[in-house]
């Protein structure tokens, strides 16, 4: 019951934040109170499971740690959203940006179900619902015309159906173990479904058009939180059906797809000028690393890598958000600094949290697939170069004078950024924070 209450709290918080979108300060305060209360509830809630229609929602140690870490990233993004309206002449479109936190909280409710459900098809369904809710925060580029969001919804339906069909093959296979066609069909449908929804190259084609219609914060939630939940579902399924990895080319597909994703993401990010697109492509680099890590089949700290990726992406998006909405000197400096810190954490440099997880994955990959290791190092170097270049562009851009309202928003934003950075560094220096997830 406690899990359902947590989901309900997320929905209520989302509705309240959305209702207060015209009053940025009240919106920020409501978001702050909501995320603190839900975070505390999620930390201390009893771990009793709930059964319904023969299925169960269970919050074990690993699920709770993973959800808490992702909720932390969601909270940071939700708290940064209302800071767009600080300028006295802020445009009406900022009202939509202000309420992004509402959509993040609303979308997080199904993600809780995704992580805690013991049924693969229902988890896939809940994940797709969360992605659908997130699309409410999109802003079309042309009125009434098909854009990236509408195309993504179509792909989401196709990918979800593909995953549900894969589940049927997985269920049927143990009845006829000699029929390897069923395993291959399941692997193909799984690769297609997860490949599309996780934007693994070459199925990442929807990412750019969708990023054009989302804000950097929306993209950060999509690639940082939603994709991490998807990887969790895939990981659970691989653990539940070990014969799937033994008797199908799924691991090879993950190795090749992961390496390709990292390289393509780094190259696309390097050439990109638009914020949201660059963020989406940058996020592909560590996702490729995680994919390669999964492809090795070794027990690696993948959840730690995913969490570090989500927090880093939240920081990068925060930096872009500051640079876009606070054109005064202080805002630009804070934006560039946040972007740089997030970028350093994203590529897994010490002392940030990703260092420990990335190091373990890199060691495993370098031992078994040296060529892929080189590709991953090159991709991360390109990603770092992209981040430094973008930070420099922000600093060297012309600045405007600021107002008192902007300074208040800036202080609030800096508080959020410092907290996320401290968590990233703290988790890097004390990696036992991830122990429960690493053990899993």
């Amino acid at each position, binding site marked *: 019951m406690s899990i359902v209450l947590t989901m309900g709290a997320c929905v209520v918080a989302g509705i309240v934040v959305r209702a207060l979108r015209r009053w940025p300060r009240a919106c920020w305060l409501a978001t702050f109170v909501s995320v603190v209360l839900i975070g505390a509830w999620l930390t201390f809630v009893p771990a009793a499971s709930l059964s319904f*229609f023969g*299925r169960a929602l269970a919050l074990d140690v690993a699920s709770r740690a993973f959800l808490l870490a992702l909720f932390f990233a969601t909270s940071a993004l939700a708290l940064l959203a209302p800071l767009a309206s600080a300028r006295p002449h802020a*445009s009406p*479109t900022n009202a939509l940006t202000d309420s992004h936190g509402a959509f993040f909280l609303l979308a997080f409710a199904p993600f809780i179900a995704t992580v805690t459900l013991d049924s693969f*098809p*229902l988890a896939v*369904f809940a994940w*797709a*619902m969360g992605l*659908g*809710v997130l*699309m*409410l925060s*999109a*802003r*079309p*580029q*042309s*009125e*009434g*015309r*098909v*854009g990236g*969001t*509408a195309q993504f*919804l*179509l792909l989401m*339906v*196709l990918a979800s*159906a593909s995953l*549900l*069909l894969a*589940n*049927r*093959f997985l269920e*049927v296979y143990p009845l006829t173990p000699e029929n390897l066609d069923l395993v291959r069909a399941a692997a193909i449908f799984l690769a297609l479904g997860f490949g599309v929804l996780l934007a693994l190259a070459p199925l990442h084609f929807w990412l750019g058009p969708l990023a054009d*219609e989302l804000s*950097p914060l929306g993209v950060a939630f999509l690639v940082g939180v939603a994709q991490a939940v998807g990887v969790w579902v895939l990981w659970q399924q691989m653990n539940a059906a070990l014969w799937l990895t033994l008797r199908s080319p799924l691991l090879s597909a993950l190795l090749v797809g992961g390496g390709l994703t990292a390289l393509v993401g780094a190259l696309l990010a390097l050439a990109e*000028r*638009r*914020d*949201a697109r660059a963020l989406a492509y940058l996020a592909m680099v560590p996702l490729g690393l995680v994919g390669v890590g999964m492809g090795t089949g070794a027990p690696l700290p993948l959840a730690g890598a995913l969490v570090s990726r989500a927090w880093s992406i939240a920081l990068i998006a925060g930096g*872009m958000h500051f*640079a*876009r909405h606070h*054109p005064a000197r202080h805002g630009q400096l804070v934006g560039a600094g946040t972007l740089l810190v997030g970028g350093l954490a994203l590529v897994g440099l010490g002392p940030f949290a990703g260092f420990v997880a990335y190091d373990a994955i890199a060691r495993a990959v370098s031992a078994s697939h040296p060529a892929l290791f080189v590709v991953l190092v090159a991709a991360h170097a390109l990603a770092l170069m992209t981040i430094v270049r973008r930070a420099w562009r*922000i600093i060297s*851009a012309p600045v405007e004078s600021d107002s008192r309202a902007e300074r208040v928003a800036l202080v609030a934003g800096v508080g959020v950024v410092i907290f996320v950075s401290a968590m990233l560094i703290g988790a890097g220096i004390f990696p036992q924070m991830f122990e429960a997830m690493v053990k899993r």
Partner: protein
Amino acid sequence: MIALDSTQIVTAAVLFGLVVSSACIVLFIDWRVALFALLAQYLCAAGLLSQVVALPHALIRVLSGAFATAILYFTFRRAQENFWRDLAQAEDDAARLVVTRSYYWQVFIIGVPFRVLALALAAVGTIGVASSITFLDIPPDVLFGALWLVATGVLVAILSRAVLRLCLGILLLTSGLVILEIATEGSLLLYGLVNIADVLLALVLAHLAALPAAPGVWRRRRGEVQ
């Protein structure tokens, strides 16, 4: 001469209804015709579903389809009111022609002859696939109906320029996928959730269609198109 029993006649009528209703959505630009066709498609899909689940459960499909259609009806009507307003504000015949063309031309990216051709290709492909493969022991008529809906749904989605028409394509697609899923899985819980998802999809796409475009100034700000 082949003798048909009443079940086969009903199945043939349901499949015929599915083919005609989906074809109407591909071929006709008028949104009222398309919405009626969508509703008819839900009725026929429920008829097909009644072969794999109990009839009361199959009728839930009609209910969720009616909700989705109602959401789309209000959004389409609002879009048309916007069109009449733009037409009234147009100062001369040339401006009125531009408004009319932009309204009618933004439904599909290609004209009727090419849509007929695409529909024929989809029909040939569906018949070819449904008659040559077996898929997890699904009856051939159910497989044909599901694949036809998937094919026409993808076709409408690919050919659409307007979000609302794409929504019709997605709903056709989900209709086909639901039949495939229920015929293979048989989980009533999942069936119920998928029906709810249809309404949610219609809501999200209607919301997208109703939103004004992001202003150029907003898009040109730092970090975006420069």
